[in-house]
């Protein structure tokens, strides 16, 4: 048992091990996004359906479900960030810069992963304070009564909406590289599947992007829910 523990430590400390941790936590977060989006899109089905969905989430497993999910997600999120920051710091140390830098094929998205990631972190903190903790007392009151109303109200503020859209754009960028990267790091990518994986990755990022921004934009630009 002790030797297997030790092997796990060695594995986690190795470059490939750390990347694998990032890939697996990333995968969990990617799947969460799909679930989160499908739930959110219920907003277009009307207040009743949406509020019932919110109610279901909070009562699932006698109210335990939402906490299990929150703790799990938080763990993935923290580990994902912690390990990428570790890896990035090592990466910076490993390289001496060129006087004349050039890139042959790496996408812009892949090169700003740490920045898109950290922006998403900032967004998530804001997002949780905004809709979950509800630091805004007006929203807090609405949230208890109708989550649907809270969302509609929440996106009346243009600054909130703009920040939301920017964050989703960076999330899209992050996913376009991240999803494909999961396959490579898990050893599931080959010459033959490379094209399909790239397509899946971009398509997934695009769907998530369009799905999430459709809500604030509908509310803000087209007056949805008013």
């Amino acid at each position, binding site marked *: 048992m002790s030797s297997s523990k030790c*092997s796990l430590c060695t594995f986690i400390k190795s470059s490939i091990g750390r990347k694998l941790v990032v890939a697996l936590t990333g995968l969990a977060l990617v799947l969460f996004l799909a679930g989160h989006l499908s739930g959110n899109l219920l907003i277009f089905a009307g207040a009743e359906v949406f509020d019932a969905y919110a109610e279901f989430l909070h009562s699932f497993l006698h109210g335990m479900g939402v906490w299990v999910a929150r703790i799990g997600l938080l763990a993935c999120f923290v580990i994902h960030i912690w390990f990428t920051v570790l890896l990035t710091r090592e*990466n910076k140390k490993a390289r001496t*810069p*060129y006087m004349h830098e*050039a890139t042959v094929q790496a996408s812009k998205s892949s090169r700003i992963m740490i920045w898109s990631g950290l922006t998403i972190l900032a967004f998530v903190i804001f997002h949780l304070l905004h809709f979950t903790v509800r630091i805004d007392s007006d929203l807090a009151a609405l949230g208890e009564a109708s989550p649907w109303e809270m969302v509609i109200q929440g996106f009346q503020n243009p600054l909130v909406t703009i920040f939301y859209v920017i964050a989703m754009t960076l999330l899209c960028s992050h996913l376009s590289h991240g999803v494909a990267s999961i*396959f*490579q790091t898990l*050893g599931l990518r080959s010459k033959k599947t490379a094209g399909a994986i790239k397509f899946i990755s971009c398509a997934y990022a695009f769907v998530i992007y369009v799905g999430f921004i459709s809500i604030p934009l509908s509310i803000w630009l087209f007056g949805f829910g008013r």
Partner: protein
Amino acid sequence: MSLLNLTLKVWRQDNPSDSGRIETYEAKEIPTSASFLEMIDIVNERLIKDGHDPIHFDHDCREGICGMCSMTINGVPHSKERGTTTCQLHMRKFSDGETIYIEPFRAKAFPVIKDLVTDRSSFDRIIGAGGFISVRTGSAPDAHAVPVPKPDADAAFDAAACIGCGACVAACKNASAMLFVSAKASHLNHLPQGLVEKDQRTLSMVRQMDAEGFGNCTNQYECEAVCPKEISVQHIAKLNRDYLAASAREGVS
């Protein structure tokens, strides 16, 4: 034959502890049929004539196979031409009046010795850690004793085409050596002769790679794009897989 006039911005560094700087040289009347290294020969010949120290650079076979030449040309190791080593690059790929930046391969694990010459012995140590099959001379069975399926033999060959130049590391924004390490591991792990030591090889090589101070792979595939032998990053995927399996087996046994 047409001639080119070029401006070279070359990294000059007297020794490993020197901080180094870019210096500018005019390369006049360079024949387009000359190779890139021959262009530097011409510039060096003139530098020597004028009493200066010539630009030091690694090179040997000048036919794209020894892996010694190692220049970053306009920010791209071995230049932006695909599947080419610096020594195979010819001046017909440049145009008159161009400015060319020439720098060494840059990575913490490849310290500069002088000018464009770097120390890539970290690669040798990675091979020594496990990039071999332990077979004593004279103890081999007949070559036909173990047939190797052609797809495996071909895959092994594709990986074995690596010339160990280090362009993959130099091109990587993180100076990761994953393409080099995975190519060697994949070459041997694909063959029945290499299966016996597969786990040990995979673990040892990756650990040595980490110890040498290379960065981590972030799947941007710059390495594949500059590899003069066009080695595929699918070997990296295989290494990730093999490493996970080897770690798991090490953990439970």
